[in-house]
């Protein structure tokens, strides 16, 4: 490199033709209060937040208060299909989300197991195929299975969101080798690690591997101080991205001095 290189890379992410500057997608659930949620969104610098639909509760206001809060942020909405177990359910919920949130983006979750909350890779592909045909821009929450990912691309997905570990566990990247394989084989599609990130170092690691972005919620919302944690993750994701662009050194098994060896003092004495 030469000194004419810019001190900061020009590096925007395209998702279905939209350009986003932040590589941190943030969930809106589980915060101790709406105020903290809003401060965390601001602190995170995110351009994209996830939202959902639920049955009206008697005490609720049809979500008006939540709706008003999120309008105050200049962010794109990514509605999810959390809680759906079949393609049919997910498709209906996606359509309802499109109507209410006025976006054709959909985070497609089709859960196959209520204990580990993992995707059902069969229903997922079915739903992704149909939703794409219905004009949706599908962000599928998927596993790290390369063949599954290829089927999702065949179904028309232009973004993939493999899990790091089960939702809400904070275990980080349980199988980095599988994630490395995905990245190596799917060089042109944006890959977002979704679910399981617990600490900023997990996010940094994912980004160092070449992942394009990170989506998380619990790790921020349930931190003791969600606002500082949102900022922590923002830094961690930026760190990992810059490291990927800067070209990380290769691990060695043999130590190697950093201080010059030439001219070492007292050298005759050994």
């Amino acid at each position: 490199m030469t000194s004419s290189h810019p001190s900061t890379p020009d590096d925007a992410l395209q998702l279905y033709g939209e350009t986003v500057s932040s590589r941190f997608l943030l969930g809106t659930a589980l915060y101790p209060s709406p105020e903290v949620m809003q401060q965390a969104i601001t602190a995170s610098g995110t351009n994209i937040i996830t939202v959902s639909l639920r049955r009206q509760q008697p005490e609720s206001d049809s979500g008006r208060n939540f709706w008003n809060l999120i309008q105050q942020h200049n962010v794109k909405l990514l509605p999810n299909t959390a809680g759906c177990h079949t393609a049919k359910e997910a498709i209906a919920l996606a359509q309802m989300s499109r109507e209410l949130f006025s976006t054709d983006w959909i985070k497609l979750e089709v859960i196959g197991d209520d204990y580990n909350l993992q995707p059902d890779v069969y229903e997922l592909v079915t739903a992704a195929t149909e939703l794409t045909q219905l004009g949706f821009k599908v962000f599928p929450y998927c596993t790290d299975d390369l063949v599954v990912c290829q089927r999702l691309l065949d179904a028309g997905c232009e973004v993939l969101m493999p899990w790091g570990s089960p939702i809400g566990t904070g275990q980080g990247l349980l199988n980095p080798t599988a994630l490395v394989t995905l990245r190596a084989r799917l060089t042109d599609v944006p890959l977002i690690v979704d679910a399981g990130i617990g600490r900023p170092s997990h996010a940094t690691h994912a980004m160092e591997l070449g992942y394009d972005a990170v989506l998380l919620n619990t790790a921020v919302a349930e931190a003791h101080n969600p606002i500082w944690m949102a900022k922590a993750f923002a830094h961690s994701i930026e760190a990992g991205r810059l490291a990927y662009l800067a070209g990380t050194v290769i691990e060695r098994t043999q130590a190697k001095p950093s201080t010059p060896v030439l001219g070492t003092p007292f050298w005759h004495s050994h």
Partner: protein
Amino acid sequence: MTITISLNGESRNVAHGTSITDLLSQLDVDSSLVAIAINQVFVPRDQHAQHIIQDNDTIDALSPVQGG
């Protein structure tokens, strides 16, 4: 004469011939923030007025919430 439907998982009687629009007006909701599926099939807002609810329909009326 009434029919029985399931609304958001709870049983409810409504008059025969009730449309979705009618149903929403009976509820104390902000219909601009409610989306409807009947029997797990989405019904777009522009069909709410014409769409007549049938006996035994299972209706989901959903509103925005926080999500992960």
